[in-house]
C-alpha cells in the first residue's frame, strides 16, 4: 500500500551535510500497525515527516496506492498526523479542532457535524466537546488529537511519539486503546517511538532504525528471537554477546568445544554469538547445551526473577535470569561457582559487522 523506495534525506550540503535518512526501502501493508523504532537521531521522525510531507526527500520515491506522492504538499496528502505535542489549536474548542480538517477540505456542514460526533464518541470525549483545548488534561488532549487526525478518514495515520508526554499508567491505557482502535477500524498506523516495550506490545511489524538506515523489519517476536545484527540484538531486550568462530557448519565459542549448528553453515570466520539471559540454565547441567561454569559476582532481585551476574572461566561476563519459584534461586550466593548450560537452540550467530563490533 505504501512503498518507500530508496528514500533519502540530507540536511545541509558539503561538509555540513547531515544524512538523516540513507536509502530506505520498505513496504507498509494495508491495515498494518507499523512501528518505527530507534534511539533519538536515528531518522525515524524524519521518515515520518517525509511521509506526512513536512519535508521533501533528497532522493527516492514514496508510492501510496500506486501513486508517487513525494511532490504532493501535506495539505493534499491523504495521511494525517498525531503530533508529539498534540498541536491542538488553543483558540478552538474540542469540536472545532476535530472539525478542522473536514472544513479545510470543504466537507458539507451536515457531514462535518455527523463525523465530529462520531469521532468524539469514538475517543469518549463527547462530554467535553465545547471545552477549549487548552483546558484539557494531557490524556484528554491526546484523545482529541487522535480524533482530529482520524476525522478526515486518512489512508494512513501517522503517530509521532504520541504517548511520550503521558505518565506510565495513562500510557499503558492509551497503548491498549490505540491498539483497539486500530484493530476495529482496520486502519494503517505508522507509529514512531523510542520505547521498545511500547513497540513490542503494540506493533504488527517493527522497523528498527539506526544512523538513518533500516536495521531490520520484522514482527516483534522475530525481532526478539532472530535479530539481524548486533545493534538490533542489543537495542531490543537484554542480551549477552560472546565471541566465537564459525566454519563448515561448526560453531566454536572461544574457550569451548565446537558445536554442530545449522545456523553456522552460512558463515565462515569470526562471529558474535548472542544468547538471551532467560535462556541460560543456571545451577545444573542440561542436555543439548554448551556446558560451562561461572562464578557469581552479583545477584539482583527483580521479583519474578533474579539477575545473576557471572564471570566465565575465560574471563567473559555473562548475565542470566533465574526464575524465582518457591524453592529455587535461594541457594545461589555471590562468590559461589555454579554450573551453566547454554542451550544450542538459544545461540544466535550474528554477522560480525565492523560497524557494530567497535
Amino acid at each position, binding site marked *: 500500500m505504501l512503498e518507500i523506495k530508496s528514500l533519502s534525506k540530507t540536511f545541509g550540503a558539503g561538509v555540513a551535510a547531515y544524512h538523516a535518512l540513507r536509502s530506505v526501502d520498505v513496504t507498509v501493508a494495508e491495515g498494518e500497525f507499523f512501528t518505527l523504532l530507534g534511539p533519538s537521531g536515528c531518522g525515524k521522525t524524519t521518515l515520518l515527516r517525509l511521509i506526512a510531507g513536512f519535508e521533501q526527500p*533528497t*532522493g*527516492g520515491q514514496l508510492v501510496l496506492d500506486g501513486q508517487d506522492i513525494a511532490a504532493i504538499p501535506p495539505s493534499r496528502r491523504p495521511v494525517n498526523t498525531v503530533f508529539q505535542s498534540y498541536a491542538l489549536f488553543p483558540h478552538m474548542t474540542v469540536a472545532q479542532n476535530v472539525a478542522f480538517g473536514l472544513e479545510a477540505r470543504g466537507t458539507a456542514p451536515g457531514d462535518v457535524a455527523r463525523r465530529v460526533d462520531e469521532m468524539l464518541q469514538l475517543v469518549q470525549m463527547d462530554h467535553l466537546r465545547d471545552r477549549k483545548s487548552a483546558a484539557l488534561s494531557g490524556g484528554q488532549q491526546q484523545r482529541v488529537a487522535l480524533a482530529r487526525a482520524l476525522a478526515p478518514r486518512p489512508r494512513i495515520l501517522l503517530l509521532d511519539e504520541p504517548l511520550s508526554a503521558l505518565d506510565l499508567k495513562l500510557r499503558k491505557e492509551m497503548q491498549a486503546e490505540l491498539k483497539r482502535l486500530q484493530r476495529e477500524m482496520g486502519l494503517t498506523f505508522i507509529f514512531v517511538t523510542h520505547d521498545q516495550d511500547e513497540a513490542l506490545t503494540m506493533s504488527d511489524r517493527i522497523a528498527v532504525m539506526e544512523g538513518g538506515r533500516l536495521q531490520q523489519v520484522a514482527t516483534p517476536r522475530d525481532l526478539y528471537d532472530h535479530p539481524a545484527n548486533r545493534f538490533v540484538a542489543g537495542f531490543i531486550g537484554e542480551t549477552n554477546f560472546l565471541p566465537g568462530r564459525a566454519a563448515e557448519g561448526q560453531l566454536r565459542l572461544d574457550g569451548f568445544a565446537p558445536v554442530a549448528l545449522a545456523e553456522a553453515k552460512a558463515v565462515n570466520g569470526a562471529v558474535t554469538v548472542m544468547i538471551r539471559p532467560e535462556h541460560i540454565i543456571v545451577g545444573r547441567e542440561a542436555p543439548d547445551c554448551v556446558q560451562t561454569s561461572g562464578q557469581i559476582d552479583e545477584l539482583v532481585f527483580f521479583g519474578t526473577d533474579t539477575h545473576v551476574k557471572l564471570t566465565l572461566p575465560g574471563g567473559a561476563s555473562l548475565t542470566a535470569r533465574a526464575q524465582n519459584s518457591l524453592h529455587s534461586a535461594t541457594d545461589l550466593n555471590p562468590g559461589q561457582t555454579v554450573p551453566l548450560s547454554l542451550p544450542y537452540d538459544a545461540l544466535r550467530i550474528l554477522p560480525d559487522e565492523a560497524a557494530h563490533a567497535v
Partner: protein
Amino acid sequence: MLSEASNGEALLRRAETRRRWSLAMPALIVIALFSILPLAVMVVYSFLTPGTYGNVVWQFSLDGWFSVVFERDLFDDTLGLADAHLSILGRSALLALATTGLTMLFGLPTAWFIATRPVATRAYWMFLITVPFWTNLLVRTIAIQEVIRADGTINRLLLGLGVIDAPIQMMFTNGAVLLGMTYVYLPLMVLPVYAAIEKFDFRLAEAAYDLHASRFYCLRRVIFPLIRPGIVAGSILVFIPALGAYVTPRLMGGGRAMMWGNLIDLQFGQGRNWPLGAALSVSLTLLVMIALVLSVRRFAGGGRSDV
C-alpha cells in the same frame, strides 16, 4: 530523480525566502524613506552654508561643525555663541546623567517593592507604572509644572500657611528641568528593572543567607549582579530620551535652562543657522547611538541579556 528532488527543495526554499523578504519590505521602505533618508539629508545639510533667511545654500562648508564647539570673530569683535553652546551641551549631559541617577534612586526600590508583592497583585502595581508611561508626556509635564510654578500648588500652599511672603521662583532652573525629566522618565526605569527582579530566583538569596551573608553582602554579591542587566537597560531607556529631551526642558527650563534639543530647534528657527542645527542634530544622534552600543555591549557581557 535524485537531483530533481533536491532541486525542487532548493526552489521551494528560495521562493520562501523571497516571500518573507517581500513581507518585510513595505515596513523597511517606509522607515527608509521617512526616517533614514531625512537623517541622511540632515548629515548633508551639516556640511552646507547657511542661507540668509534660514535654509541652506548648496555650497560645501565645515562651518556648521566648526561652530558646534568654536566661536569665530566675524567682521567685528562680537563674541561668538560657542560658550553658550558648550554650556548647553554640558548641561544636557549633566542633567541627563542626574535624571538617570534620580530615576534609579526612586525606581529601584519601587521595582523591588512591586516584584516582591504577591503574584496576583503585581500586575495591578505594574499597571500603575505603565499608565503614566503611555500617557501624554506634554500633559504630564504640565502637571509637574503646576506643582512648582510661581502660582502653583506648592507656592499657594506655603503662602496660604504664611510660611513665605512671596512665591519661591522654582521654574526655569536646572532643578526644574531635572525634576520634570525625573517625573516623566521614571516609569522607563521601573519597567526593565522590575522585569529583572521578577525573574530573580529568591532561593539564591536564601542560599547566600544560609552561607552567612549579611543582608548588604547578599545584595551586593548575589542580587545586584543578577539584576544588573535590567538596571543597565533602564539607564539607557532614561538617559537617551533625557539627553535629547525637547518638550520638558522647553516648558520647565524655558530660555534660561535650555538643553541640546532646544538648541537644535533654535538654530532652525530664530538662529537661522541650519548647518549648525544639522551638525548639532547629527552629533546628538551619534552620541545617543554610541551610548547605546557601549551599554548594549557591556550588558551583553553582564550575564543574562534577556531584558
